[in-house]
């Protein structure tokens, strides 16, 4: 089994595809893989508490999926800690690179 580092850079309210990317994350986890979903750029817009349901709800509660949101992208968009949705953890670029450079990680940008 592999570790997938999935990177979502897009806003699901602008494009329809991020919903399917979240479905893929669930399917990969269901196949026994470990999945980290790293939200970056406009992908963090789902991470604001109160944002309309959709991709985050698909990922939350999946034991093999960890959701990280890029702290710079959050800050740039005024999504401060008290506004972060449940189930989302802060991620740093250092952490991202460590994940990317670990053994047996498949990185997929969206």
């Amino acid at each position, binding site marked *: 089994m592999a570790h997938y580092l999935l990177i979502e850079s897009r806003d699901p309210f602008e494009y329809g595809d991020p919903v399917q990317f979240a479905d893929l994350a669930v399917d990969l986890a269901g196949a026994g893989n470990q999945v980290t979903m790293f939200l*970056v750029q*406009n992908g963090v817009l789902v991470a604001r508490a109160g944002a309309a349901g959709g991709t985050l709800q698909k990922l939350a509660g999946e034991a093999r999926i960890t959701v990280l949101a890029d702290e710079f992208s959050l800050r740039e968009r005024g999504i401060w800690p008290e506004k972060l949705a449940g189930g989302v953890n802060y991620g740093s670029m250092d952490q991202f690179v460590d994940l990317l450079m670990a053994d047996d990680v498949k990185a997929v940008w969206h």
Partner: protein
Amino acid sequence: MASGKTLTISIMDPPYESGTTTTMLRIVDAALKKGHNVNVFAYEGAVALPLKTQAAHPNPVKGTTVEEQHHPTTSGFISALFEAAGLTGAKLDWVNCGLCVDERGATEWVEGVRRGGPGDFVKFAQESTNTLVIGTR
């Protein structure tokens, strides 16, 4: 200190058009600081990122001068990344896809950038610890 690991990134967006440029620069910066070697394969519009003919400009809305505005250039940031690589013993290899360069006339680059092609990207992917392809919209 060099880590012995290598990251390959492929990027497509031209300068000043997409957040992918900023994110890519951040990834390369973080990776080099950790001592990882980084290969960048610049495809399509991204071959304009290291153009040395980029020039800073003022902001007429704010009434700033060129000096006051300190407008960044992507090529300036890329030059800084080449310098940063040297500090940790890591290597930055930036390849501009040659046919993309030709069709855009994007031929004058900052020091360190070289011309290449898809064969370089395949070689990078085969020899790296990991490969991250950043597409365009």
